[in-house]
Each structure stands twice: as C-alpha cells, then as structure tokens.
C-alpha cells in the first residue's frame, strides 16, 4: 500500500527537489529580505523592519515604483495593441489567395524570431540606434538632417524600445494568426459574399470570431512576456558603464536597478513580491476568462 502511494512521489522527487532549490527558495528568500532593511548601509547587520519597504514602494511617490508600474502598463498595452493589429493585417495579407511568393515572405518575416534575443538587441543598439555607427543616423545625415540620439531621453528611448520589441515579437504573432486563419472554413466566406458582405464586414463577423480561440491564449502569453520584458530596456539603455541618460524603467528593470545599482535590496525584494502577486492575480483572471470565452 505504502509503496503504491509513494511511487508517484518518488518519480516526482528529483524535479521537486530541483524546483525547491531553484524556484521556491529564491521566492522565499526574496520574501524574507523584503521584510528587512538590507541595503548598502546595513549589508551584514540587517534586521527585520516589517512592511516598511512595501509601504515605501506603494505610497511614497519618490520611490519610483508607481511611475515604473505606469510605464510598464503603457508599454504592455501599446505593444499588444500594435502587435495584434499589425499581426492581423500582415497575416491577412499573407493569406490573399493569389499571392505567389507567400512562402518566401513568410520565411523572411520569421527571421527575427529565430535570432537569439540578446544578439538582436545588441545589433540594434549599435547597428541601428548608435549615433556614430547606427544605420538610422547614417540615413538621417545622408538626407541632411541632424543626428538623433535614439536612447538619450525617456520619450525617444521608449519609442525605440517599442520599435525593437515589435521587430522581435511580431513574427510570433503573425505566425500564430496566420495558422489560425488557415483553419477557417472557406465556405463561410462564400455564403457571406452571396449575402453581399464586404471585406471588412467579413473580417469583423467571420475572421475575428473564428481565430479568437487560437489567438487569445497566444496573446495572453505574449502579454505576460511583454510585461516581464527585461532585456530590451536593460541592454539598450542601462548596461553597466553605458547608461545612455534615459531613466526609463519598467517594474522589472526597476527591481534590478534598485538591487544592483543602488544596492537597496530590501525595497527591491518588496517590489519583486508585489510583482509576483500582480502576475498571479492577473493570470488567474485571464485563465478564467479564457476558459469561459
């Protein structure tokens, strides 16, 4: 009896031990540090100070957390809206019935997805955005305009980061929507045409409802990835020794900066825990609506 009960857990044991060390311990440790005043001045002799760090993050505007959260929300919403709209339009174009070079376009458009992310970001940082070596500035000078430092201040750095994120993330969206489009029953369109429905009516009444079950989970997944995006903003604007002057922060880079640039581990951990809670709540909500929808 005992052996039959214990066997599944024995099979799970290696995975669970690994997860305990690599995932559970860091979360627990972060939770503990979030209750202490560990920072540059209390590096060894830190003590538990209760919920002060949480209060500071949430209610003191100068902590920067709230503005980082705002930036992150704006970042996520903008990225998702642009991705869905462009992804949809491009995928529709790819599915035009008499498009002969479809396969070629599809392959070429997928290349950014296949590139290692950090390489894409670093290539863009120097190859596109840099003032001396960047292609964009070379074009601007050739056309007789002033050079622009694309990463120097918050506004333009934000736009640059969005452009790069779109470049990196659109292929997945295009390919998901394209796959969903191909599974739609063609006869639906034929009967719609007989009823005199135009292109946009068909898109709105047939195409979008039909692809929703496939695209919605992918979009939710991408939303989480976009929300948690760290590499783009970090590598473009705040690498150690190469701060570009932009003080753009999403919540994730905010945590990283507070820990490793200003050594404010207590606050940084508190924000990490807050983020964890936000993500969990958000995923429960989306899970429920996905199941019902």
């Amino acid at each position, binding site marked *: 009896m005992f052996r039959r009960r214990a066997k599944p857990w024995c099979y799970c044991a290696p*995975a669970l031990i690994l997860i305990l060390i*690599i995932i559970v311990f860091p979360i627990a440790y972060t939770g503990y540090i979030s209750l202490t005043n560990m920072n540059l001045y209390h590096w060894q002799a830190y003590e538990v100070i209760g919920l002060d760090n949480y209060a500071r993050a949430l209610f003191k505007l100068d902590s920067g957390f709230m503005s980082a959260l705002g930036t992150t929300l704006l970042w996520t919403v903008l990225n998702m809206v642009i991705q869905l709209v462009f992804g949809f339009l491009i995928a529709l174009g790819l599915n035009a019935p008499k498009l002969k070079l479809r396969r070629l376009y599809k*392959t070429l458009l997928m290349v950014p997805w296949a590139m290692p992310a950090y390489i894409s970001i670093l290539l863009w940082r120097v190859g596109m955005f840099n003032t001396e070596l960047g292609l964009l500035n070379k074009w601007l000078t050739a056309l007789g305009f002033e050079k622009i430092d694309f990463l120097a201040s918050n506004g333009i750095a934000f736009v640059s980061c969005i452009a790069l994120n779109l470049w990196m993330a659109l292929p997945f969206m295009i390919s998901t929507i394209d796959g969903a489009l191909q599974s739609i029953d063609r006869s639906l369109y034929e009967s719609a045409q007989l009823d005199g429905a135009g292109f946009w009516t068909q898109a709105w009444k047939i195409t979008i409802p039909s692809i929703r079950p496939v695209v919605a989970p992918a979009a939710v997944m991408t939303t989480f990835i976009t929300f948690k995006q760290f590499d783009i903003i970090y590598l473009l604007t705040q690498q150690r020794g*190469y701060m570009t002057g932009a003080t753009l922060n999403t919540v994730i880079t905010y945590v990283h900066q507070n820990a490793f640039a200003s050594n404010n581990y207590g606050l940084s951990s508190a924000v990490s825990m807050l983020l964890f809670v936000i993500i969990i709540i958000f995923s429960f909500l989306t899970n429920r609506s996905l199941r019902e929808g």
Partner: protein
Amino acid sequence: MKRRTKERLGYAALNMGFLLLCLITLVPILYAVNVSFSGEGVTLSGDFSLIPSDPTLENYRTILFDEPFLLWLKNSLLLSAGTMAVAMLCGITAAYACSRWRFPGRRAMLRVLLVLNAFPQVLSLFAYYRILRLSGLLNSHAGLILIYAGSMCVFAIWNMKGYFDTIPIEIEEASKIDGANDAQMIWKIVLPLAKPAIIVTCIMVLITVWNEYLFATTFLLESEYYSLAAGLYQLQSNDYTRSWPLFTAASILASIPLLLIFFKIQKYMVSGLTAGGVKG
C-alpha cells in the same frame, strides 16, 4: 476586364508592401552581415550599402582564432547538454508520473508549479548569488546548469505530460504482460513514442541556454568559463566602437545554428509553445 486589372493592381501593391516589410525586417541583420565582411575603418564612414565594397574575412579570422570564440562555443554546448540531461531526467519522470497515475495532490502540484513559474527569473538573481556562493558553485558550470535546469523544469514537465497523455496506455499494458519493468518500459516503449515532444523540449532548453547572458555574466567570473552569450556580451561591453565589426561577425556565427534549427522545427514551434503555454 476592369475587375481583373483592379485585382492585379491590388496584388502588385500587396507584393510591394511585403517586399518593403521584408526589407525592413532584414535591414538590421543585412547591415550586420555587411559590417562583418568589411575591413577596418569602413564602419565609421557614411557608406551604408548592403554589399561591402571590399569584402574580407578578417573579422571572422580574428574572432575564431584570436578571441576565445571556440572555447565559448564549447562551453555553451557543454552547458546546453548538461541542462538538457538534468532537466529531461527530472522532467520526464515527473511528467510520466503525473500523466499515468492519479495520486492525491497531483492536480494541486501541477497548478502550484505553474504559479511558481510566474515569478520572473531575473528577480531571483540575488538569491541565486547567495545559493551559489554558499555551495561553492560560483564560477562553475555546474551551478549554472542547476539554475537553467530548474528554470526549464516546469516547462518540461507540462510539455511532456501533455504529450504522454496522448499516448494510449494499452501499449504499456501490453509490454507489462510481456514482463517488462517500469524502467524498461519507459525507456523502450514510452520514450521512443514521445520523441517529438522530447525533441521540442530539448530545443527549447537549448535556445534558453544559448540566449542567456545575465546569469552567465554574473556567476561566471573568468572569461575562459564563459558561454557564447556571456562572451559576446563581454565583447560588446568593452569598447564597442572598436570591437563592433568583430561583434557582428561573432553574432552571425552564434546565430546561424539557431536559425538552422528554428527553420527545421518551425512548424512545431507555435503549437509547442502555446500548447505548453507555461513559459512566460
């Protein structure tokens, strides 16, 4: 007649649009390819044609033989192989148990794993530093393999479990009657059947390890231990104006294997990612 010309014009416009889109997509990469083949000094000039005027392999020679590129490549392969072994060993056994047996706590465990996986890994950096220093695994590949394997483990379990669920249990019962024990059965019957899922999971592990620079540069202290990602990161962070051509050459060399793998398995990527749907 009129309708046909209209349609033709429409398709011409569509094709133009797509050509332009492809060009925009590829420009950063084409430019990098161009720089990687051009000699010194070219990069600072105003010239930006996509075909280098005076192609040379000098950058590739330097990166391959004067820089420890091949050593980094070896390290990356080692890290990937180690991570795959650990993650798959842990993942397959757990996924098999969760797929085949209904034991109390199974559903709760799978759920909790998903919730835990929602914690962004970047935020664990500091805790990992503590663990690795405590266990003396700082500056070693073993430490990194543990971290990578742990972070891929939940994905592996969910992905493999989903696939095991589709393998009919009758096949296993038949082999049970033939007297095979559990280990033999998993090794000889289940794993060969689950090959597509194993390959996809392994490739996701490979891509993760290949792309991970933050932990690698933080926990590996000497450049001889660096993975490719860490090495390339280091290369661009030391005076990138001078090393930019070298960096482009290295980037292209490091991307080619992934591009090849990607286009080989592309059709599984969408379904594999969304069906697993756990990472991210």
